[in-house]
């Protein structure tokens, strides 16, 4: 009991810092001291640079700061001001219509009709605005930007769904009662752990048209030399390639991503399936066992257990992985750089692997257009934010947070 009666340390008895109030001030000061190093660094290299980036983006800035050109860089990227108004306005109207539509509940039946009408109206106007503005934007804006967005879109679409499905299946298998769980986990996790530059270099040599492993295997299966795919050297879209293979004429718009991009997508899936599976495993572990038992007593079979218990209950994980996957494809740099750039030009072949982040790097680093690259970065951020917003809305009511 001696400890309790022991007087408060002498330092805290003195002057300003005396008493309870003093202790609070002292604690606050100490807290600021604790936060100082981290906050300074965050301010200097994370928060203030956002403002600085905007400042750069409204200037003509090639290594040295040039003239103030206002939104010139943005307009160079997105076309005429009216195009931007049409497209952004149209998209907002569509989003608004969708939100109003979702907000209509049976209880609001009185105003429901009115709201429905409003939503329909917004839908029509928004759609019209898009139809009117978008072609103009494509025509007036930076062709490279839209092309890179399309490529990034293909990249996301090729990567994320497959990645999610495969890792979900893998996690479910690993979650069963099997031997050597740790060993399997180590093996599947290896691709994620490997240094990106190294594993991308390895895959580059695997995709090598003449001596790479994949084409060696294809040659063994009887594919003749002139029919071997060129992988990272192939700029033709896979739609067109499949068409050629089947002997069909495929229209240009259905060409799809280039085979080179497909190779990058395969690499990406290889890296992230194990990683996603580990996260899914944690999600599966959090599902209460009793639910399965109860359902089994009610006579549910394996498929029903999966469909009605597992999938809904791991939906937060699915949502998280989807979001991270999509944002990851927008940010991806290292492996695309190694697989397509090294020894060649950015976006090789023929710019068909020029995703948005590579495009920004190209403007920044190869062309030294700091202002324009910053503007592009903000445009890309806008796209990413809208995607996140859409994903949030879509997942609303579908993601079950227990």
């Amino acid at each position, binding site marked *: 009991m001696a400890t309790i009666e022991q007087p408060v340390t002498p330092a805290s008895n003195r002057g300003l810092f005396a008493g309870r109030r003093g202790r609070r001030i002292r604690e606050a000061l100490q*807290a*600021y001291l604790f936060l100082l190093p981290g906050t300074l660094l965050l301010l200097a290299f*994370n928060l203030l640079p956002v403002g600085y980036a905007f400042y750069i983006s409204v200037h003509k800035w090639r290594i040295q700061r040039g003239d103030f050109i206002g939104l010139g860089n943005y307009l160079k990227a997105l076309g005429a001001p009216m195009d931007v108004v049409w497209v952004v306005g149209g998209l907002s109207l569509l989003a608004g219509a969708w939100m109003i539509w979702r907000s209509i509940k049976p209880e609001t039946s009185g105003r429901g009709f009115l709201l429905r009408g409003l939503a329909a109206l917004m839908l029509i106007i928004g759609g019209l605005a898009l139809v009117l503005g978008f072609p103009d934007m494509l025509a007036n804006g930076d062709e490279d930007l839209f092309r890179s967005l399309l490529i990034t879109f293909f990249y996301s679409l090729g990567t994320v769904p497959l990645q999610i499905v495969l890792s979900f299946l893998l996690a479910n298998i690993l979650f069963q009662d099997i031997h050597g769980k740790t060993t399997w986990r180590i093996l599947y996790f290896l691709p994620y752990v490997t240094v990106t530059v190294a594993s991308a270099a390895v895959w580059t040599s695997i995709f090598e048209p003449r001596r790479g492993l994949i084409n*060696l295997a294809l040659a063994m299966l009887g594919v003749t030399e002139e029919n071997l795919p060129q992988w990272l050297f192939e700029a033709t879209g896979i739609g067109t390639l499949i068409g050629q293979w089947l002997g069909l004429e495929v229209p240009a718009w259905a060409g799809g991503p280039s085979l080179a991009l497909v190779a990058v997508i395969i690499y990406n899936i290889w890296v992230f399936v194990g990683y996603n599976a580990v996260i899914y495993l944690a999600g599966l572990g959090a599902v209460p066992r009793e639910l399965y038992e109860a359902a089994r007593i009610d006579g549910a079979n394996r498929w029903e257990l999966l469909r009605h218990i597992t999938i809904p209950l791991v939906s937060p994980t699915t949502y998280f992985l989807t979001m991270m996957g999509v944002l990851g494809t927008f940010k991806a740099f290292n492996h695309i*750089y190694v697989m397509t750039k090294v020894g060649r030009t950015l976006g090789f072949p023929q710019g068909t692997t020029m995703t948005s982040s590579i495009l920004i790097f190209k403007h920044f680093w190869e062309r030294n257009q700091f202002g324009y690259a910053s503007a592009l970065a903000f445009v890309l951020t806008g796209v990413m934010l809208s995607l996140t917003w859409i994903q949030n809305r879509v997942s609303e009511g579908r993601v079950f947070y227990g």
Partner: protein
Amino acid sequence: MVSTTATAESETRKYRIRRGIVQGLLYLVLTLGAVVAIFPFAWMLLTASKTYGEHSQKTFWPAGLTTRPYTNLSPVQEIVVDMHPTDAWHGSIASFSPLMEGLIPVNEVSRLVAERLEKKDLALPLNVLILALDTTNDGIQNYDRFVLTVDSRLAEQFTTRIKLGQWGGPDYAGAPRGRWGPHFRVIEASPDQLVVKRGWNVWYMFFGNYIIAWREANFALYTRNSAIITLLTIAGVVVTGTLAAYAFARMQFPGKGLLFTAYLATYMIPWTVIMIPDYLIIVGLENFFKETFGMTNAWYNNWTALTIPFMVNAFTVFLLRQFFAQIPNELFDAALIDGCGHLRFLTQIVLPISRAPLMTVVILNGIWAWNSLQWPLIVTNTADWRPITVGLSSFITEASAETQLIMAGSVITTIPILVLYFFTQKQFTEGIATTGLKG
């Protein structure tokens, strides 16, 4: 009665068989998946053991991974090299005149060396001309320069004095010290003759590609750089992270909510946006240090630019704060009564019980730091502080067609992180899993 037990038995057997099939299928799928996950590593290791010729001839299994090259070696041999004065030196290097010359016949080389010779249009048998110079003129022991030439082409130079037993052997055309060919060692040196022992160094022969890659790409320097950069970044992140996380989790102060939101906001800022201003800030700091302190490369091309911007990250702060906040208040109250301040409480009580989250922080930040490519690409343009990722990516450009060397370089780059992974794989996967759940 009998019949019912029989049916029950057959039921359970049926069930067992079905279960067995399902299990078998599961293992089959798992194995196939594991093969897909692993085969690039196998390909990397296989290719790194091939010679250039084997790779271009699409040989699947390299001879270097069989016993043949290491067992069918001609026995160790002592060669006496007569050194006699040179009078007419017409070699490619006109700037010096050697005193003595002698010949080492090379009749047999390893496959790797043979291929490298072929590339340079050299054929066996090879006569390596050894030229000795003496600038102090006091006998063979003090010849201070030896030059080896093959077909009057410079192969290797020693600028140091010859020391018995130290000489690795001639460099065959371009390879840095080709000790994996036959391996030569000077065992006796007298003014008019050298006694050279010819043998084979199996170790060097086996790791030939790795040694070439290591030397050609300067991986020693890059690995050191990467290690320092990674360690400094981790240290910075842990210090700033624990302090900030502790303040957010256990201290009361005005503006807490606002500051926390600011930290949260940095989590959302995409790297592409701040990359350019960060680069300009580094350039600005560099110029500032140059003008005020007269220091060049205080930031650019230095560890400062490579580590300091990454010495804090919001993710670490969140992860640790989450953990710190779960520590029971009673523990702190008890410590306070014992006259323990926040700092002491943090270092002596909180940190020791937070080993698991700290481990996660260390591992994840370690991987990120070791992996970073874009930023070092931007803020370094000399080799001084170039990390291994940039080193490897420029080596890929340089070696372009020599896939076997690129693969050897990839192995070198990957090994440190794989070692870290195997030792910490439990915390590793658990850390990843928790980060995923936190979202």
